[in-house]
C-alpha cells in the first residue's frame, strides 16, 4: 500500500469510530446555556446648553437661553423615555457644567446620538449644526479637541434625519456647519439643535420661542427622528 492509501484508510477509520474521551461518563451532558446575544444599547445624550452664570442668549428680562434649553431637555427626555429610549442628560438643574464634563458624560455613555440644545432670537425655525471638522477615519484613540471628526459622516446623516422629521412637522430648517465647544469633543453622532422663533410667511404663522405648541411640535419631530435613528444608526459605514 502506498503512503497515501494508508493515510486515507486511517482517516476513514477515525471518522467511523465513536469519539473517545478521557473524561468520566456523566450520562447526558448538561445543556450549555447559549451566550446571551449582546445588543449595543441605544442611548441618546441630551446636552442642555449653558447654566447658572452662563445664561446664554437673553431673550427678555425673565427669559434666558439656559432656562429654555433645560426645559426642552426635560420634556424631550420624557418623550424619548416613553418610546423606551435610554437618555443621559448633561444637566438636570440650573447649574454650571464645564464643557469638558459635558463631553465626558457624552463619551462615557457611548451614545448613538448626542443632541446639544440651544436657542436664539434670530433667524426662523430650527437651525441644525454639525461640526465643521473634516471627517477622519475612526481610530482607537481620538484627539480630545477633534474627537467628533471621526463621527462627522454619521452626524451629517443624523442631521438629515432630524431635518426630514422637522420638515414633516412644517418647521423650517437651516442646515449649517460650525465649530462648537464641546460638540467637537463628542465621540458620537452629534447635532446642535438651535431653536429660533418662527417668522411668519405666506403659509406660516409667526410664533415666539415661548409658544408651547411650537415647542411640542419640535419635541415630537426630534422624538420621531431619534426613534427612526434607532433603526438606522448601526447601519452606518
Amino acid at each position, binding site marked *: 500500500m502506498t503512503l497515501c492509501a494508508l493515510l486515507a484508510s486511517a482517516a476513514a477509520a477515525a471518522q467511523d469510530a465513536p469519539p473517545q474521551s478521557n473524561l468520566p461518563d456523566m450520562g447526558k451532558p448538561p445543556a450549555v446555556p447559549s451566550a446571551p446575544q449582546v445588543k449595543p444599547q441605544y442611548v441618546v445624550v441630551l446636552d442642555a446648553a*449653558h447654566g447658572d452664570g*452662563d445664561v*446664554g*442668549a*437673553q431673550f427678555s428680562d425673565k427669559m434666558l*437661553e439656559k432656562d429654555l434649553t433645560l426645559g426642552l431637555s426635560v420634556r424631550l427626555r420624557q418623550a424619548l423615555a416613553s418610546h423606551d429610549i435610554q437618555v443621559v442628560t448633561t444637566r438636570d438643574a440650573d447649574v454650571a457644567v464645564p464643557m469638558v464634563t459635558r463631553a465626558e458624560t457624552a463619551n462615557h455613555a457611548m451614545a448613538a446620538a448626542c443632541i446639544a440644545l*440651544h*436657542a*436664539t*432670537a*434670530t*433667524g*426662523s425655525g430650527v*437651525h441644525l*449644526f454639525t461640526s*465643521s471638522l473634516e471627517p477622519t477615519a475612526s481610530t482607537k484613540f481620538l484627539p480630545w479637541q477633534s474627537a467628533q471628526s471621526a463621527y462627522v459622516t454619521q452626524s451629517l446623516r443624523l442631521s438629515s434625519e432630524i431635518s426630514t422629521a422637522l420638515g414633516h412637522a412644517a418647521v423650517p430648517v*437651516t*442646515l*449649517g*456647519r*460650525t*465649530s*462648537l*465647544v464641546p460638540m*467637537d469633543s463628542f465621540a458620537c453622532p452629534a447635532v*446642535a439643535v*438651535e431653536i*429660533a422663533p418662527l*417668522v411668519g410667511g405666506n403659509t406660516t404663522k409667526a410664533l415666539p420661542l415661548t409658544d408651547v405648541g411650537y415647542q411640542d411640535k419640535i419635541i415630537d419631530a426630534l422624538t420621531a427622528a431619534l426613534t427612526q435613528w434607532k433603526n438606522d444608526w448601526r447601519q452606518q459605514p
Partner: protein
Amino acid sequence: MIPRFQRFLFGAMLLAVVVMAVVLIRMRERAHDRLMMAVNTQPLTAPSSAPTERITLLVANDLDGSLIPVERSFPMPKDTNARARVLMQKLLEEYAAPKSTHPIANASGVDEVFLMPVPQLKGLMAVVNLNAAFVQAQPSGIEPETLTLLSMIATLHANLPQITEVRFLVNGQQKDTLAGHADLTRVYLTSDTQTAVKQ
C-alpha cells in the same frame, strides 16, 4: 514791616506760579492736539483720493443661514492691511444699516486687521482684532455668531485671495467664544465658508 528782600521773593514766586500755569496749560493743549492727530491718522475711512474699486461683501442672511455676495464701489487704499480693515468696516456698516439681514448695532467693531505670512500654505493669515463693544452688540446664538465670523472670513478671502487663514481676537486678547457659542480659540480656514455662500 516786611523786609525788602521778602517782598522781592514773594513777587518772584508769584511770577513763577503764573508762568508755570501758562506753560502747563499750553503743554496740555499740545498733548491733546497730539492725541487728536494720532486718532485722525488711523485709516478709519478710505482716503477719498484713492481710486474707486468694486469690492464684494459676503453679507450674512439670518433667515436662511447663507452668505449673499453684494457688490459695492469704494475708494480703496493700496496697502493690504488697510484694505483688509476697510473691507471689515464696510461689511459691519451693512450690518448696522436699517433692515439689515443680519443686524449688529455696531459699525466700528474691528480695531485692526494684521496680515502675516503662512509659509506652509503660501498664503496669509489675517488676525482680526475685534473690540469689546462689538462683541457686546453681537446677538447670541450659534447661527448669528457663526454667520458673523464666516461673512468676515469670506469677505476677506473674496477680495484678498491670498488670505487663507483667519484668527479672531477681542481687544488684543484671545477669547473663548464670540458671544457664548462660536469658537474663537481656533484658526479658521477660508475654505470653511464655501458651503455657506449662496451662488
